[in-house]
């Protein structure tokens, strides 16, 4: 059964169709949520929210666009809103808001590249971080990112460029090794 038919049946409240759509997309939604949160519990909560909202609003879905793209727009919205709530009380917001605050530290003081990379990505402004993760890591197109984040493909490209530049600066002391 193709996705168009599944969505049509899901619109009529067919639970089997909902389950089939869930099975087809849950992994992608979960791992995107996990990639953006880094916590399985949050990824699980957000994934549930995504599908609950999607099935509640499936009447709004128009079959001329892929269901996955529509679902990822909801995913982005749910995850970003959820993360904002979590961060608001996490008292790390100031650190996460300002990528400029990322300083290039000496390799001796913090030799672990993976840890430095994680810190640098976490320190990116929200839009840059989302775009970097969705485009460079998860493989979304700029058009898809624009649609999911409520911006344009051009904005997505600009944010990706900023994100890459900030990451290059943050990890500049490793650059020599990479280029060699």
């Amino acid at each position: 059964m193709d996705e168009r038919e599944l969505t049509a049946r899901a619109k009529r409240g067919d639970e089997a169709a909902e389950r089939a759509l869930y099975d087809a997309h849950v992994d992608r939604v979960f791992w995107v949520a996990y990639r953006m949160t880094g916590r399985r519990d949050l990824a699980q909560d957000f994934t549930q929210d995504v599908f609950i909202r999607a099935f509640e609003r499936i009447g709004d879905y128009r079959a001329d666009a892929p269901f996955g793209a529509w679902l990822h727009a909801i995913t982005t919205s749910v995850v970003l809103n959820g993360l904002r709530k979590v961060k608001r009380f996490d008292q790390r917001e100031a650190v996460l808001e300002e990528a400029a605050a990322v300083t290039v530290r000496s390799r001796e003081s913090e030799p672990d590249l993976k840890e430095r990379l994680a810190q640098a990505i976490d320190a990116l402004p929200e839009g840059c971080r989302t775009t970097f993760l969705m485009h460079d890591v998860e493989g979304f197109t700029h058009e898809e990112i624009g649609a999911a984040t409520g911006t344009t493909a051009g904005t997505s490209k600009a944010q990706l460029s900023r994100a890459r530049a900030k990451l290059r600066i943050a990890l500049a002391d490793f650059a020599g090794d990479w280029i060699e």
Partner: protein
Amino acid sequence: MTDYDPNDDIQDERIRALAASHYNAPEGTVPRDAMWEQISAARRAARTSPAEPAAPDATVIPLAPRRGARTIVVWRWSAALAAGLILAFVLGRELGQRDGTTSSSHIQLAQQPARSAGPTDSAPSIPPGPSTGTPDVTQRTPGAAPRRVASAEPVRPGRATGAEVAARDSVAQTLYRAAAIQTLVQAEAVLTAYRGAESGASDPQVMQQSARWARDVLSSTRLLMDSPAGRDPRMRALFSDLELVLAQIVQLSGTPLQASERELIDRAMRDRDLLPRLRSAVPAGLAASS
């Protein structure tokens, strides 16, 4: 402005590869079934609440800017409903006295829908008298609470006609419906105020006020759940969800709210789509009673 450096591409690719393999990289399995259980439970709850028009209401939630005006409207409704409630109550007493019942007729009136809500829903709930031979209701429900037995004091034969009994039933139903709607309106106001206070979560006074207000509404909710109004499955589900969220709000002590507490309340409201359901239940209830 920086010039293009071909080495940038090499660095970007290296960073991208590292991020893909190490930054929150997928590990383990997706808990599909556990998540589906939660999703399908939420879906089932939504399906059993037909008062909730799912799709459009999801877009109603963010109407925060109308909060102030909405609260005023809510309290106007509340005042109007309170007046209606008093009127219905007075009417009920008046009818009770007219057919010679005792001064506890209002208690009796309040019990009638409880008895008529069973399989014999359309039958008059007051025993019509010896001529019909209908047995006393209390004899059919031996497990009934003592207060019900007391309130089911036999009505003197020949005093109440069928029309009067029907009128009294109608008044009682109206009374319960009005009380239910009034409570829903107040609950909506509490939840709206709570959401409104979200930005001022650090203000203990706002939180204390919400908690006090929620406590008042919670007591009405519990009473209504145990009343004939709570026999309507749709209303009962709504009251039940409402009770859970209100109980959580009541527990706010006025100290700055912890993230986990707020998340818990927010999630409970969101998962149950409480505000949209309340907002849709109130006009529907009014329409039905008019």
